[in-house]
Each structure stands twice: as structure tokens, then as C-alpha cells.
């Protein structure tokens, strides 16, 4: 019982803003901008996350990469200042800005020393509310992006992840290439970027999350003064389409000659962010493929020394998600590793999980989460997920109890319902000449050239 008490203490500390002490409030400006302020004075720092709803799923089919490109253009100057002027002004504070795009949203992340918070936020507001979106700068960014796409083909891990995504979500906007393809990026016009900004980078589809050494009332005043003039836009309309699951074993071999080690992905459609069975699914997944003592690590790495790493995960998005087993091995043992993975999936369905495994997984998950929440970055990233996906805020406070109280039956049911058995996409990136034969026993092979990923 001592352990449980300690774990609860972690949350009382880490989530001192939660219902027990300070109510977590999501406030909204008149223009629809949502903001959340959470104070923590442990270090003289402030973490900032700005979430722009939309993401790569709203890209037109023939203009994939448009959201990514538009988000990157926020860093390329404003109507008042050139890209260089504003970069110098911002980075003088010691901070840098990162803008990323996933399938659901674009995310601006930065961190300030508390003394630079106000100055930094004013620059951020200028970047977001009045970007220049200058034609020449857009062309320059497109050129750079095209080179980056070529360069990405040097990374077999990236190639495997992108192809897996593209195939598993086929027919759904989640199959879009976040950074687009060379031909599509080349055709995107400056006008398209400007329109995309106008339609999607609007206050009523944006959430601002601040965490650190700040005063709530002063910060609210600041937010109002710098974001109130941002013009409200139309609400983003999204079709709630569901991707189709893979119904039987599908094998795709992506040929990249010269590799001495192949990247392997095995999986299917998974769950979305608000699935009510998220916790039992996570417990089962921890047993299968999370941490250093999971079944996959035990079977592929520890017992047979066939890989350096093996894991499984449910990557959850708003409308859907994917379940994927990730590993890699030398060319000679690709077939053997896939066989082990398929056996483990079968075993999971046939024999379920033991009480000891469940207990270990639960404790590991609780410990892992508490470590994540200890760092300011880990904390705000977790908070951002909760807020954006409109998840129950009580989840934060009750996470450890919810994990502890999950009965075995729910975990066994989750395995049956959500984990694939034979119905999987097996995707391998490697030197086809050296590994193709080993894949033939699993079924018909569809072979692709790695370069088609970005063409």
C-alpha cells in the first residue's frame, strides 16, 4: 500500500492545479482563442505550446504538404519584419521555436526564461497573427522542403514509418504525406498557402497552453492584449470517416538496395484518442511491447539476439489510430523475426496474459507516467494531449487508480477486440534481393521502390 500512497502524492504535486487545489480552466477570448495557464514556480522557465487544429488530414489530395508548408511559413517573417529580423529578435532571448505538423494539428513549441516571457510572447503573437506569407519566401521554403524530402530517403526508419502509415490508412486522410511529395510541393502556389492560412490558422481553432513561472492575472492580460485583434475565422469542418482495417495478411516489401539491416513493421488499424478501453489496451500493450522486459524484447532480443530493439504501440489520433510493432534485424534473419512476431500475436490471443505480467505492466506504466510529468516539457506535452483531444481531465488525477483498478477480464477482452492476430500488414524496408525469399512463406508480396515515397 505504501507504493500507492506515494504514487498519489506524485499526482498531488505534479497536478497541483487539478481539482483538488486550483481548477484547471480553459478560457476563451472573444475571437475564440482558447487558452490555459498553469503555474509552477519550480524553475524560472515558461513552457509554451500553441496547437492549430487541422493537421495534414485537411490537405487537399493533390496538395499534400500544404499544412506543413503553411505552418513553417509562420517563421518566415511578418508584415512588419523580415524573416531574419524576427528570428534575430526572438532568438536573442535564448529561445528557439519549433513548428511541427501531425495528422490532426500543427504545434508550435518553445520555452522562455521567465524574464523574457512577455517579450517572447509578443513576438510569437506577431508571427502567428500577421505572417508575411511572401511569395519569394514561400518559393524558398518549397525548394528547401523538396531537398529535405530527397534527404529523408537516406533514413530507412523514416521510410518504413511513412510507408506503413500510407498503406494502413489507405483511402483516409491520415494516409496523407505530412510533408507532401516532390511533385505536389512543387505545384503548391503562394495563393494556396495564403488561403490555407486564412482558413485554418484562425483563433477559434487554436489553443494556447502556458506552463511555468507565471502569474495568472498578468498573463491573462497579456494574452488579451496580444491576441484580441486576431480575426476569427470559419469553423473547420471535418468528415468523420473511418479507415478500413486490414482483413488478412498483407505483405509489402520496400526495396532499398545496399542496406545490411531491414526495418520491420507489423500492425493494423488501432484506436482513437478517446477510446474508452484505452487503459486496458495500454496494459496489454505494455506486456507485449513496452519497456525492457516486454514479451517482444524477451523473444527477439534477449532469447535470440536478433535485434537491438523491439516494441509495440498504439498511436492514437482523433478519428482513428494505428497499432504497430517496430523492430529491425540483419538481412539474414528477417523471416525468423517476422515469424516470432506473428507467434507472439497468436500467443497473446490464445493464452492471454498472467497476473504477474499485469501487475508488472501496471506498476511500470504508473512509474513511467510520473517520470514523464516530472519534466516541464513532459508535463506540458501530456497536458496538451488531454486538452486538444478533449479527454477527461480527471484522467490526470486518477490515472494511477484507474490503472491499478483495471480488472484482468477487461485486459483479456481488450486483447481479443483490439489486437490483430493474422490480419496484419507486414512491411519490410530492405535490400529485396537479400530478403525477398524469406518473405514468400507469409503470402503474396507487393514490392515497391523506396523512392516512390516522395515522388
Amino acid at each position, binding site marked *: 500500500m*505504501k*507504493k500507492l500512497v*506515494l*504514487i498519489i502524492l*506524485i499526482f498531488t*504535486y*505534479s497536478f497541483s492545479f487539478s481539482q483538488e487545489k486550483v481548477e484547471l480552466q480553459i478560457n476563451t477570448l472573444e475571437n475564440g482563442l482558447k487558452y490555459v495557464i498553469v503555474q509552477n514556480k*519550480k*524553475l*524560472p*522557465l515558461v513552457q509554451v505550446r500553441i496547437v492549430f487544429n487541422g493537421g495534414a488530414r485537411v490537405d487537399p489530395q493533390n496538395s499534400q504538404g500544404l499544412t506543413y508548408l503553411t505552418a513553417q511559413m509562420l*517563421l518566415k517573417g511578418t508584415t512588419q519584419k523580415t524573416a*531574419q529580423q524576427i528570428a*534575430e529578435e*526572438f*532568438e*536573442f*532571448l*535564448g529561445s*528557439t521555436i519549433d513548428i511541427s505538423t501531425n495528422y490532426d494539428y500543427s504545434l508550435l513549441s518553445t520555452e522562455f*526564461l521567465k*524574464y*523574457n516571457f512577455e517579450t517572447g510572447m509578443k513576438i510569437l503573437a506577431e508571427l502567428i497573427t500577421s505572417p508575411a506569407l511572401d511569395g519569394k519566401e514561400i518559393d*524558398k521554403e518549397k525548394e*528547401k522542403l523538396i*531537398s529535405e524530402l*530527397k*534527404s529523408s*530517403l*537516406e*533514413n*530507412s526508419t523514416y521510410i518504413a514509418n511513412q510507408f506503413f502509415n500510407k498503406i494502413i490508412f489507405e483511402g483516409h486522410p491520415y494516409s496523407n504525406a505530412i510533408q507532401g511529395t516532390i511533385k505536389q510541393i512543387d505545384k503548391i502556389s503562394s495563393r494556396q498557402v495564403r488561403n490555407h492560412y486564412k482558413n485554418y490558422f484562425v483563433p477559434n481553432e487554436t489553443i494556447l497552453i502556458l506552463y511555468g513561472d507565471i502569474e495568472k492575472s498578468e498573463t491573462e492580460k497579456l494574452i488579451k492584449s496580444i491576441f484580441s485583434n486576431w480575426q476569427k475565422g470559419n469553423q473547420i469542418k471535418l468528415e468523420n470517416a473511418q479507415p478500413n482495417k486490414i482483413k488478412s495478411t498483407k505483405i509489402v516489401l520496400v526495396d*532499398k*538496395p*545496399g*542496406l*545490411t*539491416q531491414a526495418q520491420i513493421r507489423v500492425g493494423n488499424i488501432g484506436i482513437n484518442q478517446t477510446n474508452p478501453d484505452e487503459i486496458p489496451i495500454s496494459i496489454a500493450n505494455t506486456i507485449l511491447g513496452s*519497456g*525492457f*522486459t516486454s514479451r517482444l524484447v524477451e523473444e527477439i*532480443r*534477449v532469447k535470440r*539476439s*536478433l*535485434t*537491438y*530493439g523491439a516494441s509495440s504501440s498504439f498511436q492514437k489520433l482523433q478519428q482513428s489510430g494505428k497499432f504497430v510493432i517496430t523492430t*529491425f534485424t540483419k538481412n539474414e534473419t528477417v523471416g525468423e523475426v517476422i515469424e516470432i512476431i506473428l507467434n507472439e500475436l497468436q500467443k497473446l490471443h490464445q493464452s492471454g496474459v498472467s497476473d*504477474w505480467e499485469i501487475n508488472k505492466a501496471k*506498476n*511500470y506504466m*504508473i*512509474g*513511467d507516467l*510520473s*517520470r514523464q510529468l*516530472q*519534466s516541464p*516539457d513532459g508535463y506540458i506535452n501530456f497536458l496538451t494531449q488531454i486538452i486538444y483531444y478533449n479527454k477527461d481531465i480527471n484522467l490526470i488525477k486518477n490515472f494511477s487508480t484507474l490503472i491499478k483498478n483495471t480488472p484482468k477480464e477487461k485486459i483479456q477482452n481488450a486483447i481479443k477486440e483490439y489486437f490483430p492476430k493474422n490480419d496484419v500488414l507486414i512491411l519490410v524496408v530492405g535490400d529485396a534481393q537479400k530478403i525477398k525469399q524469406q518473405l514468400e512463406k507469409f503470402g503474396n508480396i507487393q514490392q515497391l521502390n523506396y523512392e516512390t515515397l516522395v515522388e
Partner: protein
Amino acid sequence: MKKIFAFLILISTNLFGQNVDIESYYLKNGMKVIFAPNKEVPSICFRIFFKVGGKHETPGTTGISHLFEHMMFNGSAKYKPGMFDKLLEENGGYSNGSTWNDFTNYWEEFNSDKLELVFDLEADRMKSLKLDNENLEQERYIVMEERRLSVDNNPQNKMEEQLYATAFVSHLYRQPVIGWMEDLKKISLEDCKYFYKTYYSPNNSVLILTGDFDKNQAKKLITKYFEKIPKAKIPEHKKIIEPEQKSEKIVNLFQEVELPSILIGYKSCSINDSDFYAMDLIANILGYGLSSRFKKILSEEKKLITEAYASQDQMEDKGLFKIYAQARGEKEFNKLLDEIDKILEEIKLNGVNPNELEKAKNTKVLEFFDAFKTNQALSFALGYYEILTGDYNNLFKVVDNYSKVSSDDIKRVANKYFNKQARTIVISKPVSDEK
């Protein structure tokens, strides 16, 4: 803006001078112990550093420090193979290890009430590791996969490996920490036994504890579990002085890449050299952020690169100052080295402007706080400074050391180290370009 910076230093020094209660002492067997208690979160990070890494390995056994790090998780007298991680994970903790050129370190994070268990696990593997062929063979093949992943199929890391192997002729920084594949195949059980007996002794280690623990209780337990481990005679590590490099070296690497790239390494200084801070700030000015010189000139103005970085090695002995840039194509690549040289020449001639210097210093203030974000980060930072500089207190001096760097210092170190005859260049091109 300069005033603001001075103010920040004052704040940060005071903050951590007062709030971080750190103490250290030695056990009778020579093990150094550092405590940094912090009750905010009821968990602890245990970390142990051993003063052994890539640079201590004899040729023919490269990679043994790292291979051995893997073997440390595979059972000891009291705990059977696999128990180490299982016990930790089932109690909500986790463990890991990493090996560098100058040291090897292991860490565990766990709930506060498991302190004794962790001491028992760590002390047991330190004094009675299960060293047999089964353990060695299991990890040998795993490490070979790790090498395939991180070097053989990773063009940029392959360039790094070639850079060090070529730049250093005498110093063992030329050896890859992960080891050459042929050496990995040959390391014997006898090599491992000698390595363990020689380097994994208390007088060659530093134990660091951060987080929620009671100092008196921790001291008693450390005495109980670690003080009885006998000290060993550590062979004298002869400091190798790398001979002066008198001509430029160039390596052409044809590999599975889409775009050509270049990696330049200038012979530079150690983390203990007073020039280190100026060189590290130059790296920042050249390659960090959207306003860096590389971004501004090589990417925005000249449109030559997809990416570029600069970094100053943080090593106990003299390391390299590295510049990496990937060109957007063959045409761009042909201009790249000249343009990089022009940027360095400009700094040698005129130094950097005051705003650039202040920006770089402000970045370092923000970075300084990274060490205080988690128990794990603090335990690493304390051990890192203890091992590399001989005193963990140097961690608290870094902001001050950066703040003292003047524009003249920048110009002086640029002229001292950016000499073409003392550089090594690795060029990476697609296999199809090989004639």
C-alpha cells in the same frame, strides 16, 4: 539587453546556490558519493559512473566498454539473468546505461521506498556479475545489430566514425565507442573478465543520488552495500598527447545517400580548457537557430544546404570542433566548402557582433536549466562534471564561464583553432558517383 543577462546569472546562481543542497563524501574503498536530495517528487534517481570508456580500450578490443555495459544487466550472484530489469519494472522503475569515450554510466529511476532494493541490485552486479559465454554471446549479437542500426546503415554516423578514425592518429578518440565490427566478433570472455576486474571497482566510480531520500538512511545503506566491495588497483591511464596535425586530411566516402554532404573536424580543445567556452559559443553562433550564420548564409541566401550544424566536443582530452552540412545537390555541394571557409574566415578577421554573442550566451542560460528539470537530468549533469572536470561544482560555474567570453576571445580562438592544416574532412557522396 546586456544588463538583463547579468541579472539572470545572479538569479540562477543564487537560486541554485541556496536551493540545491548537494554534498559529497568518499567511502573507505575510494568510491565517491554525491547526494542532491529534493523532496518535490517521491522518486529517486540512482546513477553510477565508471571512469572507463572508448578511450581506455586496447586496439583489437574496441567496443568492449559498451558491450560490457550490456552484459551488466544479465545476472549476478544473487539475481538471476533477467531479474534486474524485471524487479525494477515490477516496482514501477526502470534502468538503462550509456557508454561514452571518457566514461560509462548506469541509472535507475524508482519509487522512494525501493532505495534498498536498488542498492542491493547495483552492489551485487558490481561485485559478482555473472560473467560467462552465454552472457557474452547474447550481447555480442545484440550490439552487432545496434552497430548496423546506428552506424552501418546510418550515413551521417558513418561519416562521424570516419572523421575520428582519420583525425586522430595517436589518441584513442579515434576508436568508435560502439567498436569496429571485426573487434566485436572477437572480444573474448577473458577480455571481459580482465575489463571487469580492472575498471568496475569502487575507487574507479562515482555514485550519485538525486530525489526524495533521507541522507542519513541513504548513507547507512550505501555503507552496508558498497563499502565492503574491495578496491582494485586501477592501471595508470597514460595521457596520450595527440601529435600536432600538420596537413589537411580528406576522406571520400561513397555510400547509400541521396545527397552529398561534408563533415569537417578541426582539432580543438578539452572541456577543461579555458578556450572551451568561446569555441562552444562559436558553434552556437554558426549553427543554432534560424538566425545562425549557417542558416542565414548557407540556407537562406545561397540556398546550398538542407541542414547544417556546428558543435564543440565536450571531452576530457582535446576533441574536435565539427561542422556538418548536407548540400541540396551536386552543384550546391561544389560551392559548399568555400562558403563555409568564408564564414570562418570572417569570424577570424572580424569576430562576431555583440548581439550574436549575447544571443549565444542567453541560449546557454536556458540550456543550463535543463539539468534541473528532472532527477535524472541532475544526476547525469553532476556525474558528468565530476568525471570530466574533476569537480561536480563546475556545473554551477558554466553560466559564469560563458558570460566572461568577449568578442576578442572569439576572434582569438577562431584564429587559434580554425587552421586548414589541422582539419580533417569527410565527404559523403552517392555510390553512383564513385568512379
